[in-house]
């Protein structure tokens, strides 16, 4: 357990790390290298990071496969898009005082995240009574149901709200592609999730992953912690969905959130490392950038992923990073510990 002094140091190191990262992006941007294409990839990496880290809570730390994460992303995306749209319309009709687009976006994120969390609760309570492959298949089912329902909602298609049409793409969504805002939101989300993992909540769910029966015999209300984690994870999928909805294209399609999309995030979690936030972040960035960087590769992307996945399962079932966590603080102080101990490793954005 770190004392106050070490904690303050770690916090400072984390803040400096975040600052340096922001600065690097700023320099890159001011050199004129951040064109729309790069910006797109950047934003894609950001929502992928949130998706993968949040799914990692369920898969890596709670130890259950969920195949419907894209469903929660869809709820977040559509809710936030409709909310920002409604606010925009209200401002236009002068029934509401004008607010800054930034505030509008944040209200959208919050609403999207809360809606996704609510769906997480609705899905989680029945689904988490099951385990293993049954849980996987039931979350897949819920994910598809969410998507099909959205597809059939008139107000979630076309121009949306009152003038919507079921089955169509939702168009005319507000744009919010300020990379600094999105980057900050991403880091805050990851920071919150790391804090969650390194608290009694994280400890509890890892205990449940290790041994369900022993956990309840040690006084843990396993259902409560499982559902809480599921809801928490869905909340962040909602945030990712909100960023996705406002990424700049202005449209949303229900087909963006199929079972295949969920599978893609599962792949990222597994390749990165189940139970490693560092691995989740690295995998999300790598697998978002790689297909763009190598055009030829993009065609064979899923083929390569699937082979990689099988090989990883054969030779390193815990994922490439296992449960390793990168720590800037440790890197700087060279105070490496042999035992892999969550408490004593600090990743960026912690505290």
């Amino acid at each position, binding site marked *: 357990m770190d004392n106050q002094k070490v904690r303050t140091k770690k916090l400072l190191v984390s803040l400096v790390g975040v600052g340096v990262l922001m600065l690097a992006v700023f320099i890159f941007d001011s050199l004129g290298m951040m064109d729309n294409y790069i910006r797109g990839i950047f934003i894609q990496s950001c929502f992928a990071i949130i998706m993968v880290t949040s799914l990692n809570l369920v898969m890596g730390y709670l130890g259950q496969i969920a195949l419907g994460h894209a469903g929660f992303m869809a709820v977040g995306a559509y809710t936030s898009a409709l909310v920002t749209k409604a606010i925009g319309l209200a401002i236009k009709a002068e029934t509401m005082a004008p607010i800054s687009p930034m505030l509008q976006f944040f209200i959208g994120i919050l609403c999207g995240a809360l809606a996704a969390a609510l769906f997480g609760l609705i899905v989680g309570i029945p689904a988490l*009574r*099951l385990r*293993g492959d049954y849980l996987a*298949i039931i979350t897949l*089912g819920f994910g*598809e149901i969410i998507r099909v329902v959205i597809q059939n909602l008139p107000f979630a298609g076309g121009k949306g709200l009152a003038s919507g049409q079921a089955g169509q793409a939702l168009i005319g969504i507000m744009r919010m592609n300020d990379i600094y805002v999105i980057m900050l939101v991403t880091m805050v989300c990851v920071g919150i999730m790391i804090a969650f993992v390194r608290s009694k909540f994280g400890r509890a769910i890892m205990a449940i992953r290790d041994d369900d029966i022993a956990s309840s015999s040690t006084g843990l209300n396993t259902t409560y912690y499982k559902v809480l984690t599921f809801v928490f994870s869905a909340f962040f999928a909602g945030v990712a969905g909100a960023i996705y909805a406002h990424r700049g294209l202005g449209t949303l399609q229900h087909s963006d959130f199929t079972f295949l999309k969920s599978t893609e995030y*599962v792949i990222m979690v597994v390749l990165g490392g189940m139970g490693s936030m560092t691995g989740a972040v690295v995998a999300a960035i790598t697998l978002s950038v790689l297909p763009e960087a190598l055009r030829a590769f993009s065609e064979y992307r899923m*083929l390569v992923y699937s082979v990689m996945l*099988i090989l990883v399962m054969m030779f390193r*079932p815990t994922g490439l990073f296992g449960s390793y966590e990168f720590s800037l603080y440790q890197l700087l102080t060279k105070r490496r510990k042999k035992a892999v101990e969550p408490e004593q490793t600090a990743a960026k954005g912690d505290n």
Partner: protein
Amino acid sequence: MDGLTLFIQQIINGLRVGSVYALIALGYTMVYGIIRLINFAHGDFIMVGAYALFFTVPVMIAAGMPPWLSVFAAILVCATTGVLVEKLAYSPVRAKGNKMTALITAIAMALFLENLAQTLFGANPKQVKTIFDLPQVFGVSGNTVLTIILGVVVMIALSLYVKYTKTGQAMRAVSEDKDASLLMGINVNRTITITFAIGSGLAAIASLMYVAQYNQVTNMMGSMLGLKAFVAAVLGGIGIIPGAMLGGLVIGIVESLSKAYIAPLTGGLITSAFSDAIVFSILIVVLLVKPAGILGKNTGEKV
């Protein structure tokens, strides 16, 4: 068309789709019964079989033989694929990992087959020539009747095989307790391999009936088909051979009826596009209310 005729027509449609689901569900159930793994790639074995038919049917026709004979080629291809998947991927992962890693491997294998097919044959649907030229039976298409008959025959044959042959008994033993079976001198690996071969071979028969009805092959055809068949297997009681058949037919009929009636019944509130959602809702309800499935109590038939 009056209401009753329409209803009967929908039931028949349901039986037609359902019997294909049933054939696929049999494969799921065999594999799940023995290694407790949802073989996500099983749906894609249908696709593999369908491509095999796509390539061999013209050969048969050219050779002047009945086109359906190419099902034997498809069975060979599917069984080989199944055994290879088991030997190269599932078996090594099972030896080291846990349930989760095995399931991820199965998902990865499904993605691999789908994308390999896309790379090899492209993403556009391919047309397959007519396989059967059957007369209608009491107004029901010959294909439908044949599919249902085939389903029942396969189901009975499988049940008898599992019950009375030595390998079938070994399958039941392995499904009960792998370690104990090993101690009793059963060649567990060989038994699992045979199960995969049979389950995947069945997929080829399902491919035949699917292709005979829809005349089309795509690399993604097995994905949703497989999922629904899995729902069918769970509904009937996974690991139970007659359960797969029953589940398949029920899912087919529910799907067909919901497509036809849900919109008028709900005043257009719920449209026919919901039928997939309804199938999954059935799965959810079954898993929560009776996870063992409709025939779940009967453990004697477990493979």
